[in-house]
C-alpha cells in the first residue's frame, strides 16, 4: 500500500506492507540512519522519533499507523534552532557525546522542553528514562537540559522582542 505522511517537514509517501515497522521504513526507504531498530520492543530508546510532536519509539509502530501524520527524526530536527539550543546546552554542561544515545537524548529533551519550558529535575530524569544509557552522569544531564532550556527561552524571548 502507499503511505502518505510528512517526514521532516516534507510531504512524502512510501510503498509499505502491513508487516513493516516504522523504524525499518525510515532507515531503509529514506536512509535515515540516525535511528536504530535494536530491541524491537520499545525499550532501548535508540529508535525514538517525534510523531506529531510526541516522543515515541518507532520500532513498535507499524508503518501503516502513521498515515497522514508528521514524523520528525534526528536528521530533520538537526536543522532547527531548538537542536542548536540543546547541543550547546549539553556541551556547556559536559554531557558526553555518545554514539548510542545522542539522538535519543536530544529528541527526548526537545519533546520535554516543548511542553515544559523550565522542567523540574524529576521531570527531566523521567523523560530521559525513555533513552536509557550509562554514558553520562545524571547530574551533568540535568545541568545540560536546564542549560538547553535557558538557551531556548532566551532565544524565544529575543525573537519575540
Amino acid at each position, binding site marked *: 500500500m502507499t503511505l502518505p505522511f510528512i517526514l521532516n517537514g516534507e510531504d512524502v509517501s512510501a510503498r509499505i506492507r*502491513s508487516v513493516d515497522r516504522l523504524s525499518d521504513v525510515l532507515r531503509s526507504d529514506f536512509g535515515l540512519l540516525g535511528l536504530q531498530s535494536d530491541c524491537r520492543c*520499545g525499550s532501548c530508546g535508540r529508535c525514538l522519533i517525534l510523531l506529531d510532536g510526541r516522543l515515541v*519509539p518507532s520500532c513498535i509502530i507499524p508503518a501503516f499507523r502513521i498515515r497522514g501524520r508528521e514524523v520528525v527524526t534526528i536528521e530533520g530536527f538537526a536543522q532547527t534552532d531548538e537542536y542548536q539550543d540543546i547541543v550547546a546546552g549539553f556541551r556547556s554542561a559536559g554531557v558526553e557525546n555518545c554514539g548510542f544515545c545522542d539522538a535519543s537524548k536530544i529528541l527526548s529533551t526537545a519533546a520535554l522542553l516543548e511542553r515544559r519550558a523550565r522542567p523540574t529535575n524529576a521531570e527531566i530524569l523521567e523523560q530521559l528514562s525513555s533513552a536509557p544509557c550509562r554514558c553520562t552522569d545524571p547530574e551533568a544531564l540535568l545541568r545540560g537540559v536546564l542549560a538547553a532550556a535557558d538557551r531556548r527561552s532566551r532565544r524565544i524571548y529575543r525573537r519575540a522582542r
Partner: protein
Amino acid sequence: MLVSEIHYPRDLLELLDLMRRLPGALLYAGGTEILRQQAGRGVSLPAEVICIYGLPELRKASLSERYLDVGAAVTLAEVLELAGSALPSLLADALRGIGTPALRNLATLGGNLASRDRFMDAWPALACLDALVELRDSGGATWINVNRLRGEDGRPAFPEGGLLTRVRIPLERWDALALRKVGGRDYPGPDTAVFALAARAEKGILAAFRLAFAGQVALRLQEVETRILGRSLPLSEREHRAFSEEYREAAADLPEGLAVQFGALVDGALRLLAR
C-alpha cells in the same frame, strides 16, 4: 509472514460497520502490547486490521463535577496531562508506572483495559474507583462496571466483538489510596501484579473500602469489602486478623511469591485501618 489488509474508518459508524462485516478483525490503536511481544523483523497481525487510533469519537475527554470521561484511544500520557489535579492519584500513579514516557505517548487507556491475556496496570486502580466502561456494537451502547471485565475464574473477560469507546472515572474524595506494583522485574510477566486500595472514613466509620489485585488473574472480594464497611475505626486486632485471613485464603491459588506479597500488602492496608 501474512500481509494484512488495513482499514481506516473515518468515524464511529464506519468502524461499527467494519466490525460487523469483519468479525475477526484486530482493532489497532496504540498497539504497544501487540508489538512488544514480537521481536522479529516484521510485524505479525491478523488478516484484517482496523486502525482506530485517529477516530475523533475515541480521542475525546471531558471533565464534569462528578466524572472524568476519557475516550478509549486517548494515550496514557494525554490522560496524565489533560486531567491535571482532577485525575484520581490512584490512577495517576498506575499510569505513571507504565513503561517510559515515550511508550505512554503510544499506549492508550482502552488498550490497557482491553487486554485479553492478562490484566494490565490500570485495571486495579479503575476497579477500586468503580469506573465504568462504555461498550458499543451495532446494537447500541452499554455502560458496565470495569469489575465486570473480570470473569468468574478471575481471568480477563473482555467481551468478544465489543468496542470499548469510553472510560468513565468517578471523582470522589478518598482518605487512603495506595498502589503497588509487585513481582519480578520483567513486567508484565507471569509473576507480576498490581495492588490497589481506596478507603474513605466518615465520622470514624469506614464508609468505603475497595481492594483490587490483578496480574494474570484479578482478585476483588466485594463480599468481604461489604462486611468491612460500617465498622468503627480503628479496626480491632480481631477484625484485622479475620479479614486478613480471608484475603490470604482467597490468594491461595496465586503463584507463591505473589501470594506472599499480596498477604503482606493486605496486612499493611488493614493495619492502617487499625490505627
